[in-house]
């Protein structure tokens, strides 16, 4: 996507972001980050018009006035900027490390290039949890290694009896240095690193990467490639939504549903393999288009899609009508619409709280917005609403897949790419991954090398959602509530 760039004084940045969000019907903050520690940059989006702008502000003495107390959704961004660039958000109400903890040298700011201007602001990276005080309050520490087969993170519950008073989440355990690596590898090989940001979201990450590179180069893939990309993105959504709904079955002890959904997800992964040769759609979407798709595969995929629809119907209908499942879901783990908006939640979590935002309807990627299905919105904000949104999206993903397969446009899968990227350029891509809005942002230096590659995973917005949802709920409802938000650790930690 082409974006307008502007330079603004750092004091104006916060009022400008606020007026963008409040002044437009659906204005959003995409992300805040820095390029190399000398400045702040903000990407703002307008889903109504498909517009995006980047605002850059120079930061003096490595310190700026924190945005968080007036713009709560900035809190996570400011913590990440602090860790990666050493920029200090003065007045942040609860500044803690987000990504780099005790194992890292206190003076390690991996994405920063100039030396720190105020070295004595460096701390020893010790993490202190918020302490809830009062008679009968106890703490429960879970993780980083969890009981199940799942990515690592630490949850610190402060409880009174069975009720959770506060949940604080410490992440960063799977920080692998993805953003830095993306600036180190030659750009034609960067797609494999971009995919590994979170491999359950490989297709969406590859797509965002491809779009960002293509708009730097000013090239457009063929309609055929756009159709194949749409299939890949929807197959990924389908497979992950199926297993996430199945996981809800596991967490209410409804094992017939969860094992059936596990099996049916296999059918969706099989469709991914038909398309790309890989169950996780790895290495399929690439700048310039996609890999070629052998003849006959698309016909088989059409059969597989209608078979999967048939096989899903009885299981989902039994699950939807089951009174015990409903009893566990309804009114539990609520996120109000106003808090969802204030913290900038995206994807299923936002739509289940009444926020009508699906990047497929707003920003061009694949055959979208032309093929965008109706946005699935629920008003309850609880586990039931999130499950319902997910189930509706299973059906609309299948609709899109069948619609694309019924009329495949012609064209070559791949167009030739130039050897080098333009210098001093900026581009961004916004893709609706199965968890929600995914952003890749690329800035090149004068020689055309990638100077800064920023990824904003949907979970980066949504992690705060679990702390909001579980407050004043029972500890026994936590696994279910967590599953209903389906958060990515690796996408957050990068």
């Amino acid at each position, binding site marked *: 996507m082409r974006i307008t760039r502007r330079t603004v004084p750092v004091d104006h940045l916060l009022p400008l972001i606020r007026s963008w969000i409040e002044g437009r019907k659906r204005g959003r903050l995409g992300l805040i980050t820095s390029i190399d520690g000398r400045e702040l940059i903000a990407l703002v989006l307008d889903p109504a018009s498909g517009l995006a702008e980047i605002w850059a502000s120079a930061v003096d003495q490595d310190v700026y006035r924190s945005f968080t107390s007036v713009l709560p959704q900035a809190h996570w961004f400011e913590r990440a900027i602090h860790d990666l660039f050493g920029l200090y958000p003065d007045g942040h109400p609860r500044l803690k490390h987000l990504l780099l*903890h005790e*194992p*890292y040298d206190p003076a*390690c700011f*991996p994405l920063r290039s100039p030396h720190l201007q105020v070295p004595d602001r460096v701390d020893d990276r010790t993490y202190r949890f918020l302490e809830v005080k009062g008679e009968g309050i106890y703490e429960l520490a879970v993780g*980083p*290694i969890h*009981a*199940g*087969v*799942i*990515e*690592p993170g630490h949850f610190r519950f402060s409880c009174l009896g069975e009720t959770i008073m506060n949940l604080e989440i410490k992440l*960063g*355990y*799977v*920080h*692998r*240095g993805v953003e*830095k*690596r993306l600036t*180190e*590898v030659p750009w034609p*090989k960067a797609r*494999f*690193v971009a995919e*590994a*940001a*979170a*491999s*359950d979201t*490989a297709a969406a990450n590859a797509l965002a990467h491809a779009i960002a590179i293509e708009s730097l180069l000013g090239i457009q893939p063929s309609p055929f490639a756009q159709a194949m990309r749409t299939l890949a993105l929807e197959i990924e959504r389908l497979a992950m939504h199926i*297993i996430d709904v199945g996981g809800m079955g596991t967490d209410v002890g409804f094992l*017939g*549903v969860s*094992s*059936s959904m*596990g*099996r049916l*997800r*296999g059918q969706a*992964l099989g469709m991914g*393999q*038909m398309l*790309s*040769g*890989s*169950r*996780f759609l*790895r*290495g399929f979407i690439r700048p310039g288009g996609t890999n070629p798709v052998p003849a006959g*595969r698309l016909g088989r995929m059409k059969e597989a899609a209608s078979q999967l629809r048939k096989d899903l119907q*009885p*299981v989902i209908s*039994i699950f939807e*009508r*089951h009174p015990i499942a409903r009893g566990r879901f309804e009114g539990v783990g609520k996120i109000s619409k106003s808090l969802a908006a204030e913290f900038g939640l995206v994807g299923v979590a936002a739509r289940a709280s009444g926020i009508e935002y699906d990047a497929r309807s707003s920003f061009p990627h694949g055959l979208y917005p032309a093929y965008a299905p109706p946005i699935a919105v629920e008003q309850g904000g609880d586990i039931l609403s999130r499950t319902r949104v997910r189930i509706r999206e299973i059906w609309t993903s299948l609709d899109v897949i069948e619609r694309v397969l019924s009329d495949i446009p012609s064209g070559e899968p791949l167009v030739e790419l130039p050897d080098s990227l333009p210098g001093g350029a900026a581009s961004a891509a916004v893709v609706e991954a199965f968890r929600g809005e995914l952003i890749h942002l690329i800035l090149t230096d004068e020689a055309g090398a990638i100077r800064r590659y920023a990824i904003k995973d949907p979970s980066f917005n949504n992690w705060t959602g679990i702390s909001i949802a579980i407050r004043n709920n029972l500890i026994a409802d936590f696994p279910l509530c967590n599953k209903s938000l389906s958060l*990515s650790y*690796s996408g957050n*930690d990068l």
Partner: protein
Amino acid sequence: MPTLKLLSYLIDRGVTTVKRICPPLEDDARGMPALTDAPCEGSGCQACEEVCPTSAITVRGDGGAASVALDLGACIGCGLCVETCPTATIVADRSTTVAATRREDLVLTNDPAEIQARESERAAARSEPNPFAKSVHARVVSTGCSACDAEIGASGNPIFDIDRFGIHVVASPRFADALVVTGPVGKGMQTALRRCYDAMAEPRAVIAAGTCAISGGVHRGGYAEANGADKILPVDVYIPGCPPHPWSIIHGVLLAMGRVKARNSGLLPSPQRQSASEKE
């Protein structure tokens, strides 16, 4: 009665578990690369080396046939080398029995002397009684991007049904015989992983599942020091793949139990020889 409906649905589906253990993947799968006995033309062609995104391939030789070394422990299965190779020295391999007990066995070679040496070493190695032969309880620690975890999860679904082999995934290192590590083990997870291992009773085995856990994969050499599990713990079994297929995971755990053989170091027949033998 939704529960009865579900029961009748499940009975209607019948048994979905696959009977044949670790079959090769379907034809539409990309698989992993493997070397054939078709000689590499060498002399200047380094196409595979150049396209490989993780520098897993080295071509050595001056004039005439060259020797190729392909490290499956660094390979992410992108398939570019297979596409690029003009001599069919590198082909797609859809075998799921890919795990090895020694890191060096994952470095495929087409050097006949080297293959011979490995095979005789393997023949000479004495097999010791394996304490996990009947059953193994595994603790899975994820340090990566969740694809390997998803495939471990899938290996427990009704299609693959890992439990039928006496393999059980457990929730505490105290219950565990084997530690399955996924992901490249960056700085953030090194202490937790070591503590998990320390909490396990002996005898214990460590299985590195997936290319990141073996070598760090695309993350190798970065500031997060995410260079694989064997930089932190002694590893007994390596399962290559990005991510490994559920069958490959099952093969790897069975290998840790001493119930199957590790991958062999021999070369595949070249496509010409293969089609000739099929005609016969």
